[in-house]
């Protein structure tokens, strides 16, 4: 496997590299199932979780992954820190560098912030993109792929496998979704076929560079594609105020996952959501709590996958 220094985009991962991380994640899942859930791998290494946006879920997932690998963990939240007093990304990065951070997990509201950090020369450590604006969220895509692979092939027999021939439908606000962008890239890399279902207002004006087939009719898409997994994206209510769609009721009726659409899925199809869910908006409670739902698996798989990413970027640099 070629040496990966940062994880900024799902496009950084070749098929081989992606499967390598998923395989390591399987081993990490084994660790996470033990009574003592800890490895000494990153002892003496410092990882900073640099969060310019609120995201408790992603932050604690990374934090748990870092701690289970025995890293020293610093949480640097923008709110209440010098960042909210106008300190720039550059100053923050240089400060962390001066303190000797070996890796920085960054969540930022600006697209490209992680790449800027990695290419700027401000900081030397590994940069992991934990979500940059409306651009990408590669560890989410990895945990989604991991979840699909595990459910499809079984935990014990997933190793070395991709997602070849599987069909995944991603539904909702594709335009503003870093989850959709990273998933479209990684799922294709792993051999799956990607479909988007969205109101036309929430699809990029020119999606030519995104490898996915676009549908406007959810029911027709489910009937035509017969997906192995359906991923519902979180819809932000402020989109409604910007006229992307007329009302929450209309959105949930036309683009939401309900019992009827759930019943139309083939048996065993995965129903995924990156969380946090708006129950009653993009997904009904019945659907969210159904056996098809992988929401909680995604959360626990997230820890294993993030351990695998940290391991891959940081443990190998010793050699």
């Amino acid at each position, binding site marked *: 496997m070629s040496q990966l220094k940062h994880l900024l985009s799902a496009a950084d991962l070749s098929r081989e590299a992606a499967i390598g991380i998923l395989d390591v994640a399987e081993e990490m899942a084994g660790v996470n199932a033990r009574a003592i859930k800890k490895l000494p791998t990153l002892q003496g290494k410092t990882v900073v979780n640099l969060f310019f946006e609120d995201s408790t879920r992603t932050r604690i997932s990374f934090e748990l992954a870092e701690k289970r690998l025995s890293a020293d963990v610093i949480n640097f939240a923008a709110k209440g820190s010098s960042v909210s007093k106008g300190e720039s*990304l*550059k100053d923050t990065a240089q400060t962390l560098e001066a303190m000797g951070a070996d890796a920085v997990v960054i969540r930022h509201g600006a*697209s490209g912030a992680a790449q800027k950090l990695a290419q700027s020369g401000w900081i030397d450590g590994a940069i992991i993109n934990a979500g940059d604006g409306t*651009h990408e969220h590669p560890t989410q895509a990895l945990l989604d792929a991991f979840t699909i692979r595990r459910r499809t092939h079984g935990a014990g027999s997933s190793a070395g496998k991709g997602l070849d021939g599987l069909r995944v439908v991603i539904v909702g606000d594709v335009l503003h979704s870093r989850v959709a962008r990273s998933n479209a890239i990684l799922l294709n890399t792993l051999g799956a076929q990607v479909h988007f279902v969205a109101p036309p207002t929430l699809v990029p*004006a020119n999606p030519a*560079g995104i490898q996915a087939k676009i549908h406007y009719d959810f029911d027709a898409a489910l009937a035509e594609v017969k997906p192995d997994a359906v991923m519902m994206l979180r819809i932000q209510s402020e989109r409604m105020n910007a006229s992307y769609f007329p009302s929450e009721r209309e959105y949930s009726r036309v683009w939401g996952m309900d019992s009827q659409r759930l019943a139309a899925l083939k048996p065993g199809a995965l129903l995924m959501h990156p969380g946090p869910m708006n129950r009653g908006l993009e997904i009904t409670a019945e659907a969210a709590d159904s056996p098809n739902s992988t929401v909680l698996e995604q959360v626990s798989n997230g820890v294993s996958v993030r351990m695998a990413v940290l391991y891959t970027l940081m443990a190998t640099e010793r050699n």
Partner: protein
Amino acid sequence: MTSLIIKNATLPNGSVADIAIDGETIAAVGTNLATDGATVIDATGLVALPGFVDLHTHLREPGFEGSETVLTGSRSAAAGGFTAVHAMANTSPVQDTAGVVEQVKALGEAAGFVDVVPVGAVTVGLEGKQLAELGAMANSRAQVRVFSDDGKCVHDPVLMRRALEYVKAFDGVVAQHAQEPRLTEGAQMNEGRVSAELGLTGWPAVAEESIIARDVLLAEHVGSRVHICHLSTAGSVEIVRWAKAKGIAVTAEVTPHHLLLTDELARSYDAVYKVNPPLRTQEDVLALREALIDGTIDIIATDHAPHPTESKDCEWQAAAFGMLGLEIAASVAQEVLVESGRSNWQRLAEVLSLNPAKIGRLSEQGQEIAAGAVANIALIDPAAKREIADTQSKSKNNPYRGLNLPGAVVHTIYRGYPTVASGTVAEKGRN
């Protein structure tokens, strides 16, 4: 009495001649002119062009002297072969009164490297609400003829109509920054394939084109002339072409960066490529080049927009819009018009000197090189290949750094005074 003589220069029409200069004026153009003890510039192999005129420069003074001053911007202009620049109005205070435009003109005279021609704001404080005192600026010592809220669009159609009508009184022109504000809220880069992949908010071509379409129709309706700043899309070219065919008095400019660079560069998330209007696609670049060659686009204007390092060395979304341009404009023009084999030096002289001077109603700039003309001359080495490095500007937001471009300005003569000699900018201006 000849003070300066340029020997063996190639004129835009291809003929080789000597140019004798007496004080501020070209005394004679001909072969084997006597040197008479005058200073001699050997221009063998160099192309002599009328000094360039920029219709769109941000000199940042007063108010943003950390980015540029009238002096540093003037030196950068001279290094680029310019002998006149139009200083855009978005200073602080805004150039919306006779007092401020006169101050900027005075700063230009004190610097002495180019004619600094202030542009007046169309509306008070560039706020798009109330007309600035256009007449007072026109009648001031600064003799303002070009009015623009550049950086912001005069988007209120009634206000735009009134401005177009009002400036007829003194043969002025409104230079529109065509950007429909609602369609570009939060916009970061060209809306297209690349913005979709990068997750940066798109800036649709229609936001520019809809305003241009409206304004050419308004100009036709009220019988005024209108100038379109930094036209950047293939669709805008089509609208201007249509308007010109219809006889509407519209002129249009294109920047060097829109002739050379595309939105693919945004993939680096390096904010040096962040500009308003945004870099567009290769198709747009080709349409703009074609339009410059066929005359649909009248001029190249730099939109030279210096910014301090901290405004660019940050995440894309937080960065300022704008890039430098004065010192590469001639090279880009040479690339597009001459090296391409599609046009010639005469056209280059038109788009960088003659036409912008006409639009700005400058009588002492943009003159053909001939006896009696003011001695504003740029001497270019067309064979030079140069890798773009640092510039005379106070700022470093130079997207051309590291690119190889043809041609180099070797000498610039401003009103008979060499502001650039053998590639080196003079220590002092002509005063």
